[in-house]
């Protein structure tokens, strides 16, 4: 597979196809980053468009001191930050749709996944979104880049222009907060379920 560096070099020389290949390669991760940062599909799509447009226009200024993907991540994070600042909005935790079993039947990840498992998975997804949305931006970004994009601590530090120890501190603090929130939410969900079943059997 052609390396990012080679594709960047070709794209810089005017090869649009090379740039399209870079887009194909990085579009999904970039969308995932924008979507999880903003919590909105529409805005995430706009950010992806904008990020690649900026990357394309800025190719000549990209000196290759960082990885192309890191550069792209950085552009994306800046665009997300701009959007949140402009809209004065915190990231939105998307509330899951109704937990109607008929509605859920279509969405089972595998034929073996029971409706109960699916409900649990969706509850967990919603809980994670809420917990992440409540984190301070710096902690959320560190966790996002580590957990969903598999960047090394060193890569995160370079991308965010901060010391390695700062990245680890943010990650540790973020994980600690998430742990508390998720444990509490899971306890609440369990007691709600218990109350529900007890209520229906009474």
């Amino acid at each position, binding site marked *: 597979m052609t390396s990012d560096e080679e594709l960047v070099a070709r794209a810089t020389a005017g090869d*649009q196809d090379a*740039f*399209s290949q870079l*887009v*194909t390669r990085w*579009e*999904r991760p970039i*969308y*995932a980053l924008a*979507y*999880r940062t903003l919590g909105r*599909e529409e805005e995430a*799509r706009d950010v*992806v*468009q904008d990020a*690649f*447009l900026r990357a*394309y226009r800025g190719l000549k200024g990209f000196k290759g001191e960082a990885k192309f993907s890191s550069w792209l991540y950085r552009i994306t994070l800046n665009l997300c930050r701009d959007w949140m600042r402009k809209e004065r909005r915190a990231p939105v935790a998307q509330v899951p749709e109704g937990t109607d079993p008929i509605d859920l039947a279509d969405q089972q990840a595998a034929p073996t996944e029971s409706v109960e498992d699916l409900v649990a*998975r969706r509850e*967990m*997804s919603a*809980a*994670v*979104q809420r917990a*992440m949305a409540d984190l301070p931006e710096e902690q959320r970004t560190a*966790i996002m880049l*580590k*957990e*969903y994009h598999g960047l*090394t*601590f060193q890569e995160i530090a370079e991308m965010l222009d901060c010391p390695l*120890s700062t990245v*680890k501190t943010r*990650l*540790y603090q973020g*994980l*600690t907060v*998430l*742990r508390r929130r*998720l*444990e509490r939410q899971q306890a609440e969900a369990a007691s709600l379920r218990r109350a529900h079943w007890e209520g229906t059997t009474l």
Partner: protein
Amino acid sequence: MCEHRDRVLDYLYDEAPPADRREIERHLDGCDICRDDVQAFRRVRQDLLAWGVPEQASVWTPFAPAPVVPWHRQVPAWAMAAAASVMFVVGAAGGFAASVLGDNGRGVATAQAAGPAPAAVPVNAPAVDPGVVSSLVRQELSAAGFNALREATPVSVTNPMPARLDLNAERRLLASAEAFVGASEQRQWLKISHYLTVVANEQDLERRRDGESLTHLAREVLVLREAVNGLLAAQQSRVQ
């Protein structure tokens, strides 16, 4: 919090070299805080996986001449060539004839007779890449454009255009036109791209208001015929 926190994170995320891993594992055996952290963080990491991302079609299309394609497919080649050609005949009234025919006064007069430029079209809002339009027009011009245009132009008593030009004259005309295309300003192409988009949009509307857009195109073609007839006649007389 334990002072080994950062190393425990390296361990948790598999960033610790093997020798360090063994050392950290020995530490975990004796440190309740770190052991509890690792177990809890592993659960958190597992939970985080529940947050998926919706499937998404590609959002990157700037290189694809998408707004032009449907129109290009729906409209006969000659009409498209005509519409595009109208733009550079009309848009450069006065300048075009001179560039094609040198100082031939008849050419200038003909181009001016081609009608008013579509000045209402804003030039600062291109909907398609000018480069794409440019290549499209070039392609159309050399493949079918001028030939189709000439064939679509009826010869009548009042129309002095000959049925066939000799090959050299035609080639020269094509070369001149292409030279014009090459020399054309970016602004011109923005105008053309927008014009094409406008026509393309009209084509979409045309599905409901059947015929209106084609009538409009036909009118443009009529205007164009006058211009091209004049140019070809002038060219012809210069060749002779």
